[in-house]
């Protein structure tokens, strides 16, 4: 039983308790199922906060290790190995927070097969927690692949009209990248006689020419997930078709698995390849920032607009990671959280109005701020957070990333950051365009067809935690940076 009481094990697998309970519930008692799912994820969030209290911020190393020998075949040693450090603690907390929020958002939005929906959602949380906590490459791979399945069904069963296409595409894109990663993992396991990440990093000494191949193999999986330009083609489909809660988790957590992968594996495992690749990744990130922002501006569907904005935002994260200095990397980690908060909030809010109008065409909206003042104000704050207004969270991340990238030795030129800073202007262009078309101007067609109601208390409660964090991180990010900084400094020792 000692195994189960490990904080991280408990945190990762606790949602299974909810799954077990729900499995034996009558599928007609929808509210009861919702409450079970909600309580389970709230307790999971509580567990993640408990982990935070056990976590020592000043310690740069992996902590709260749960480590067991698991499979030993043919000289391989596969471990069950969970641990957390400054690189992952915030993402664990983000996952813990966004899951109950997403479930709360489905309260009236999901009426079909609530039971199955909640089971998938809870399984998804297990996968996500596992991805951020696994320190054994093989175990990581299992969790990584495992997240695909529930997400596939969430899109495929509860999605929009083209959900099958979107779900299959999402699945196959990620699979394609993952296969290369699997090959690299197997190679590493053979080479180091272990799949333990800390051990492999400590061994080091992978020949430079092989490093590059391994780097590319890992990068293939992660870059698709991020998604980096030009591998983003699955993202708009998945986002547009996914149900609101799916989009929130997809943008809020699943995309971060890609950037986190670079941070956790590529940078420490393949230092020489990382340095070589940095300018190229910075180039792709810069293109992604500008391209995503420009394409976002031309969208007629508001959900697609936000989806493409993710391409731009995640470009900032990649730029920061490969700046390979303290500001860039710490900013990138914080920006992963920021993007989860602001884009998560935007998807939630769009979902709330969609529930009433069943359309996301920008041109039928207009003047909503007059009819729905609370909704408009909350949307405005989320939009401003997304476009990086100082005083809110997005700015702290973007500023530190750009500052880091501007003087980065690894990237080697201030031009990437300079051009990327143009993305700050373009973000204002597309975000304000969206806000104007929906909330300002004369009342749109949709207001004549529907009696639109302002947000109710449940809906306000759903986004409230995100809003509080937007202000908190924007005004006083010190507690967050304190969690990140020691691990980042340790990571960058070799660079």
């Amino acid at each position, binding site marked *: 039983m000692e195994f189960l009481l490990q904080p991280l094990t408990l945190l990762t697998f606790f949602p299974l308790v909810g*799954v077990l309970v729900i499995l034996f519930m009558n599928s007609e008692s929808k509210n009861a199922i919702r409450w079970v799912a909600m309580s389970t994820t709230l307790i999971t969030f509580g567990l993640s906060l408990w982990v935070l209290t056990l976590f020592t911020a000043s310690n740069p190393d992996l902590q709260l290790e749960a480590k067991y020998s698991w499979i030993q075949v043919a000289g391989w040693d596969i471990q069950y190995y969970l641990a957390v450090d400054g690189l992952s603690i915030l993402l664990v907390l983000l996952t813990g927070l966004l899951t109950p929020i997403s479930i709360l958002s489905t309260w009236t939005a999901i009426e079909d097969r609530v039971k199955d929906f909640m089971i998938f959602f809870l399984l998804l949380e297990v996968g996500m927690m596992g991805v951020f906590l696994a320190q054994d490459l093989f175990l990581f791979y299992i969790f990584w692949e495992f997240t695909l399945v529930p997400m596939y069904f969430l899109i495929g069963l509860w999605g929009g009209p083209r959900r099958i296409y979107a779900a299959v595409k999402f699945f196959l894109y990620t699979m394609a990248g993952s296969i290369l990663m699997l090959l690299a993992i197997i190679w590493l396991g053979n080479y180091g006689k272990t799949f333990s990440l800390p051990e492999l990093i400590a061994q080091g000494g992978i020949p430079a020419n092989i490093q590059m191949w391994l780097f590319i193999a890992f990068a293939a999986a992660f870059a698709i997930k991020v998604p980096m330009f030009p591998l983003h083609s699955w993202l708009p489909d998945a986002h547009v078709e996914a149900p609101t809660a799916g989009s929130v988790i997809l943008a809020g957590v699943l995309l971060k698995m890609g950037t986190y992968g670079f941070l956790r594996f590529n940078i420490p495992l393949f230092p020489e390849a990382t340095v070589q690749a940095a300018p190229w990744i910075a180039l792709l990130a810069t293109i992604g920032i500008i391209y995503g922002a420009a*394409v976002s501006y031309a969208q007629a569907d508001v959900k697609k607009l936000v989806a493409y904005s993710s391409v731009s935002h995640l470009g900032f994260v990649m730029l920061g990671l490969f700046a390979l200095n303290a500001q860039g990397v710490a900013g990138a980690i914080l920006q992963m959280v920021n993007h989860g908060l602001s884009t998560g909030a935007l998807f939630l809010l769009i979902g709330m109005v969609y529930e009433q109008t069943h359309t996301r065409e920008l041109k039928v909206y207009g003047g909503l701020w007059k009819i729905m003042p609370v909704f408009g104000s909350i949307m405005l704050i989320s939009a401003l957070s997304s476009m990086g207004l100082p005083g809110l969270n997005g700015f702290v991340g973007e500023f530190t990333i750009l500052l880091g990238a501007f003087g980065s030795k690894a990237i080697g030129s201030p031009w990437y950051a300079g051009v990327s800073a143009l993305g700050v202007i373009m973000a204002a262009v597309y975000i304000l365009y969206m806000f104007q078309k929906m909330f300002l101007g004369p009342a749109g067609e949709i207001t004549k067809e529907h009696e639109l109601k302002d947000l109710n208390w449940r809906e306000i409660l759903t986004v409230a935690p995100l809003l509080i964090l937007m202000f908190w991180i924007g005004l006083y990010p010190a507690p967050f940076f304190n969690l990140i900084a020691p691990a980042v400094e340790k990571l960058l020792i070799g660079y």
Partner: protein
Amino acid sequence: MHLSETIISLAPWLVFAPLTGLLINLIFGRRLSEKAVGTVASLASGAAFVVSVLLAYAVSINHGEVMRWRLAEWIHIGTLNLDWTFRIDSLSTTMMLVVSGVGTLIHIYAIGYMHEDVRFKHDEGRYTRFFIFLNLFIAAMMILVSGDSYMMLFVGWEGVGLSSFLLIGFWFEMDTLGRPSWANSDAAKKAFIANRIGDFGFLIAAFLMFWGFGSLQFDQVFAGASSLSAINSPLTVAITLFLLLGVAGKSAQIPLYVWLPDAMAGPTPVSALIHAATMVTAGVYLVARSAPIYATAPAAQYLVAMTGAITALFAATIAVGQYDIKKVLAYSTVSQLGFMVAAVGMGAYTAGMFHLITHAFFKALLFLSAGSVILGLERGHHHAPSSPTLPPKGEGSHRPLSPRERARVREHHEIFDPGDMRNMGGLRKTMPVTFWLYIVGTLALTGIFPFAGFWSKDEILLDASLHFTGIYWLLTIAAFFTAFYMGRQIWMVFFGESRSEAAAHAEESPKVMTLPLVVLAILSAVGGGLNLPFEGFHNLGHWLSYTLGEVESLPLDLTVAGVSTLLALTAIFVSWLLYGRTPLQAGQIDPLKRLGLVFTGMENKWFVDEGYFAVIINPFKKISQFLADVIDWRFWHDFVHDTLIVGTYNWLSTIALDHYADQKGIDAFANWLGTATQWISENVRKIQNGFVRSYALAVMLGVVLILGYLIFK
């Protein structure tokens, strides 16, 4: 020292006071009366003023020594250390006093103005929102002027941009005439984006500072800049020029000034507070604050001064051709900001700050009086038996009305532009208080002795005449135009006969509006006393020298003062010849039309907006459309993915693999996933024990097995 320590600890209340007002109105606003809402907001702003006075006092008893108050840490990562630290010195307290002082007067005025405005616009519920935004603005502006680092300044810098966006778009569902339209929200968006372009420059400058000097805190940056031995080193030139872009955005200089005239879509107190007296002067403050960097880059200084001077003249010519009372003042503001930017560019910081202060007084006075005029006409319009409607044909500075709108106007007599000077005339009789206030503001702006503008403008001209002849002439000609367009405005608005029923029935504004104006009028009249060009009276210069170092205090130069006064009087005389001697009649075209193309250019703002649309905005829209439709969707999405990848895959699986292998291959798996899902989603209601549940059970089973193995092995 003890006393000043205590006072300094109040510094955060510069921001907290207006935020408190904001929160009270946000939470309880619905339950409070209009008067209570306005009073709370005014008190909040007034409290910030009291704190500013105390802080200024603390600076003076400390003989100008810089004081700091660290509230909290902000961003600390690697070598980057940013704090929420308030910087109290003579420059920052000067700005605080102007912002909160003028700001409070405008809050009080707005109690009366918005009371009527929300009724004319039929949305009384929006009253509270206005004061919430106004308090937000004061808070942001206080952060801007009191920050001790470039980044804290930047927080305020973008914060005021946001407030400006919210207030320009306050009536977001209409245009300035109250018709359903995107116009006001377009103006708001334009202001935000133009400012963001400037902010891009600011950010790049900040990056250069950080990597060049290792800090973003003012003193450390200045120390780094002055330690560079080279004059005009590429680093400082680059920093100052990128900062200039920021200045051009915020302080509405060429090439980014275009947002400011459109910003007049906001209610008039907003135009007075944000778009005349305070926010737009932030760029001037930024240059003055960065004086030690600019000092090491004379080349950049000259460019700043030239930008200001050209803007001053360019905007003044446009002001001549405007018909909207607020548009004239808006271009006048751009022009006067040009004077200030030119001054600080030349290194004449005292002159620039002096003009900033006096301009805050008289331009706030003018805008608020214009607001009084506009409301006076609205009142007249609502009382008049029938309302005159259209501006005279063929010379609209506004977008010409479409035939349908014209028809509606004729039928319903609804649309009336109370801001169009062609609808005014003869208001000195119906609105005498406003008239005299306007006269004081005009005399101050045109620089007639002994009003405030005379002293401050003259100091700028004098400095220019000694060091930069070209700039001197640009500014002097701009001053001539200034006097002319203000003369034109006075004659058109207040003299002659009323050219509309509304003007004939116009009513004077209530005391809550006129009293703050009287205070501003007194300040506009005697504000010059802050810094008289006589030995021992350089009060402001002495005060600012604590922060900016000794600056030369010039004595009065009778030639410069004489030339500018003479030119101003000539310009007023010419305007009388054209507009005063024979007043405009209703429907009569502007006498300046005789100038032909030149006037057409002025009327249409030299077609700069159209140029930006043609060169930047439309191409950007087209490019992003092209990227989205052709590149991203048709090429990447449809062709590369759907055709190339899927096609190749299908081809491989049917040709290269035999049928049997295909069945068991990945394709089969994908197909299976696809059809399975499709089948389930279509038939789910018929299935009791569906696939989904079996799948979930299978997963569960696997997990349980693994866990069981681990636990019990």
